[in-house]
């Protein structure tokens, strides 16, 4: 019974697949050029007549990566410089603290 059902399913499946393939090879023409061009012109006007060039994506990403690297380096240098500068007053404070105050005499 099961084998019989399997054969039936195969048979139906095969018929439907062949039907699909014969439909795919049919050749009725479709002409959408006019409609597409109308929409393309409208899109172009909306975008201000500018079409993004092919390499724009790559250019943006490369620039962004390099800019991020530069920002990181500048930030590290700034922090380093700030630390070096802030070390000066700290040392002065140590000098003051080591000097005896009036009340200590």
């Amino acid at each position, binding site marked *: 019974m099961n084998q019989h*059902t*399997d*054969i*039936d*399913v*195969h*048979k*139906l*499946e*095969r*018929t*439907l*697949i*062949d*039907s*699909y*393939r*014969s*439909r*795919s090879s*049919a*050749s*009725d*023409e*479709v*002409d*959408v*050029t006019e*409609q*597409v*061009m109308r*929409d*393309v*012109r409208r*899109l*172009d006007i909306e975008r201000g*007549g*500018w*079409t*993004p*060039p*092919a390499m*724009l*994506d790559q250019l943006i990403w490369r620039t962004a990566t390099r800019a991020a690297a530069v920002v990181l380096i500048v930030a590290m240098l700034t922090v380093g410089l700030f630390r070096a500068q802030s070390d000066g007053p700290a040392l002065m404070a140590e000098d003051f603290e080591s000097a005896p105050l009036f009340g200590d005499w």
Partner: protein
Amino acid sequence: MMSHLAFAIDMQALPGCHRSMTDDSLPVVKPERELLRRIRQGEIERYADLIDQHQRHVTRIVRPRVPSDRISEVVHDVFVRAYVNLGQFSESVPFDHWLAGIAIRTCYDFWRDRARHAVPVSSLTEEHHRWIEQTLSVQSDAQFRRQTETRDAAEVLEWALQQLSPENRAVLTLVHLDGYSVREAAQLLGWTLVNVKVRAHRARQALRNLLQHISFGSAS
């Protein structure tokens, strides 16, 4: 019994299964590249030439995938979508192959949109059940060919595909009906290989369950 077994052929092994997604009728590549360059530089009227060159190719992909009254609409959407994404075309693949991917995904979106708006699916009629009975009792190749050519065959297949999810439908159509490899289907859909492999198996199983159900229903 032998004639029954003659139909039990794995469809992957059938000759002529694979449909090319590149258009072999397009001999020139260099002028096309030039055409693309000019369109990108702002000569949008040249896009009409590109549409003329690829319209048949796109229609051939779209026709079996959407209802016949929606073919023009979907082909139109494919070309508008291609224009919008023209900046992303890297020229590392042939243009018609890139366009085929857009066509496949536009058809998939068409069914996804329909599923979202809960468009009611058609049901099988008495004629369809009669066609199923006749198909199951077919004994010769000539009878088999006649059965495939009827409108009922296309309608029963459409009914079965409508029962599947848009994802399963897209994968089943590419892998089992068009005969593409899982890798090619994954490239065209822009999905992962594993996703397509799993879906292809599940979708085929779902189709077989449906066919089993209707063949049993028609027999009883």
